[in-house]
């Protein structure tokens, strides 16, 4: 141990920094960067990973043209956009609402917070399986609860093309709203009390306090939570596969599910690499724009 300390003593700060960073960099290069470059290379070929011995041919931009010109791909993107947008809207509204409630001091606050956070801790596969039971029109609790308030009769959330896209939105919202809530709660608890005291002195109403103090203070936190959720939901796979398998038909076949089917069921490696690159660029582009907007909001 002493020897090691001596050795470290002989190194400059920069060298020690590199020493610590290098393993991470190597892992990053091996696990993320190399596969990315490899996938980009593959995307210009007609490679099929299951056709052993068949050399991939360079096909230029053919895969990209095919994907971007395919009506079905745009349908999958629309389904993905519907899922991402609605989950973000609902998770922002409900998450912020819950955070505002839990920010007040009342008996059982901590227990309630723990209970609300529970869904987030479950495995998406487990959540998918038990929601399929909840949605079951014959024995599921969901139908029962909805019909308790208004008699819609028997309806099949997963089997109907109109309802199925909403069924996945509901489950994701149920599972991940606690995440948005927790981040917002952290934001709310960081607002100094003197701001509200000053507002009270200025006779600001509760609504004005919310609009001028609470919301601007919590907004960067909320946006950060939505950034994480947006990226995650753009790549959503497991929960939806367990819940609907992308069905009925292709009503809930998100881009990531379609990508998996092309890559690992149809084994169209070249084509699916191009699709993966397109999805990566899309998410990267959106992410960058979003971060810039978020930084501008913070600067205000």
């Amino acid at each position, binding site marked *: 141990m002493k020897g090691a300390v001596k050795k470290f003593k002989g190194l400059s700060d920069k060298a020690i920094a590199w020493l610590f960073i290098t393993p991470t960099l190597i892992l990053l290069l091996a696990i993320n960067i190399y596969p990315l470059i490899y996938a980009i290379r593959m995307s210009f070929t007609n490679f099929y990973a*299951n056709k052993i011995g068949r050399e991939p041919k360079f096909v230029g931009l053919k895969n990209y043209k095919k994907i971007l010109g395919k009506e079905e791909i745009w349908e999958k993107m629309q389904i993905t956009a519907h899922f991402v947008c609605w989950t973000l809207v609902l998770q922002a509204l409900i998450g912020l609402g819950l955070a505002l409630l839990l920010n007040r001091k009342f008996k059982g606050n901590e227990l309630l917070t723990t209970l609300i956070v529970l869904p987030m801790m479950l495995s998406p596969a487990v959540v998918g399986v038990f929601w399929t039971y909840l949605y079951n029109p014959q024995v599921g609790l969901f139908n029962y609860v909805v019909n308790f308030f208004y008699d819609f009769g028997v309806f*099949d959330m997963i*089997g*109907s093309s109109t309802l199925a896209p909403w069924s996945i939105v509901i489950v994701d919202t149920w599972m991940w709203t606690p995440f948005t809530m927790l981040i917002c709660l952290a934001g709310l608890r960081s607002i100094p009390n003197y701001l509200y005291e000053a507002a009270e002195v200025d006779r600001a109403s509760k609504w004005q306090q919310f609009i001028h103090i609470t919301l601007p203070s919590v907004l960067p936190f909320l946006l950060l939570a939505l950034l994480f959720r947006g990226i995650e939901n753009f790549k959503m796979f497991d929960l939806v596969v367990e819940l609907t*398998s992308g*069905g*009925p038909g292709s009503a809930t076949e998100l881009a990531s599910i379609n990508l998996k089917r092309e890559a690992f069921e149809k*084994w169209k490696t070249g084509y699916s690499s191009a699709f993966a690159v397109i999805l990566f660029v899309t998410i990267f582009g959106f992410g960058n724009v979003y971060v810039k907007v978020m930084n501008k909001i913070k600067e205000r």
Partner: protein
Amino acid sequence: MKKILTVFLIPVFALFFSLNAKAESLTLGWAAWDPANALQELSKEFTAETGIDMNFEFVPWTSFADRMLNELNNQGKTFDLLIGDSQWIGAGATYGHYVKLNDFFDANGISMDDFNPATVYAYSTWPKGTPNYYALPAMGDALAWAYRKDWFDRPELQAEFKSKHGYDLGVPKTWDELYDMCSFFQGREIDGVVRYGAAINTERGSEGITMGVTAAMYAWGMEYEDPNNPYSMDGYFNSAEAAEAVEFYRKMYEDCAPPGHSDAYMVANLDAYKSGQVAFQMNWYAFWPGVYKEDSDGRESGFFANPCQNVCAATLGGQGISVVSYSDKQDLALEYMKWFARPDIQQKWWDLGGYSCHMDVLGSPDFVDSAVYAQGFLDSMGIVKDFWQEPTFVELMLPMQERIHDYVVNGKGSAQEALDKIIEDWEEVFEADGKI
């Protein structure tokens, strides 16, 4: 100290060496279902005879193809023997995943003439129908139907059905009769509980709805391609009769399936039937021994082969057993296959609940009376038809799953449009594969 070490270490080393010197072993991969348990039981006899241990990896049906095909594509050595789906034979042979068995069969006196011809054609040969064998028929199977015989036997229901339809409530001979009967039970209260017509295949993720809808399409006379012009599908796969069959299947789904039965395959159909929800279930013969054994609380099951319509036909299931070419224990695996091909073992296989394809078993005078579903099985194996067995079968299956599910369950477009689009997708696959 030395003594203690000696006393402690000797047994440890002895155990270590005894484990290493333990008998050789084989690993067999199959789907996780009733027949797999029967095979595990049967294989104990192989271990007793040869000293070769048998390990099994049974994968749930929903991930069976993914798991096994990934293993083969990665040239994995996990499995020495694989009981793979009939549709995999093309890929298994073309991409060299399976060992060609002709020389082995010749050397060991195993004749394919001893097995049911339909199963040899479907499970063993590639190119189709040629004497190039890549599997031994292991588990014969076809899609069939089970029904609530106890309900059918009720005089009041029989009388009501006859007055409504003009013929007896009994085993349906055609799909039209099947529809009459399953819609008769839809929403009907029996013993104070609301019942439904039929649990049919509607699963989206793997092969469920395709296996179900083809049961109707084959009965309407659908062919995949022009027999004189391979891979020419227009006018065959999307014929007016084929479209009518798909429309009929949608009608069955809408008018006979229990609520929420929109993504159902083997297990969901079994559950719907066993829980008393439905009068009929569509499923594989493999499940009938279990269904029959579990009849209780007044439930009495009857079984019948896929009904005819324009022609008599049934969807083929079942699998052949193959030796994986990446295995380091091919000799042992072949030894297992030699043992499994023996007529006495095949008889035990049937007795335990496996569906033997051996002619000695199927042709035995006792066979038909050996189980209530035996006659149906024999009838079905004479009329089976299978999905494409091309190396690209997964690429062919996926668009069919999507398009058919989109029409039958989702109600999107028309049956004709769905079939036309499937042909477009398939042509793309065949073009990429250099077949057209």
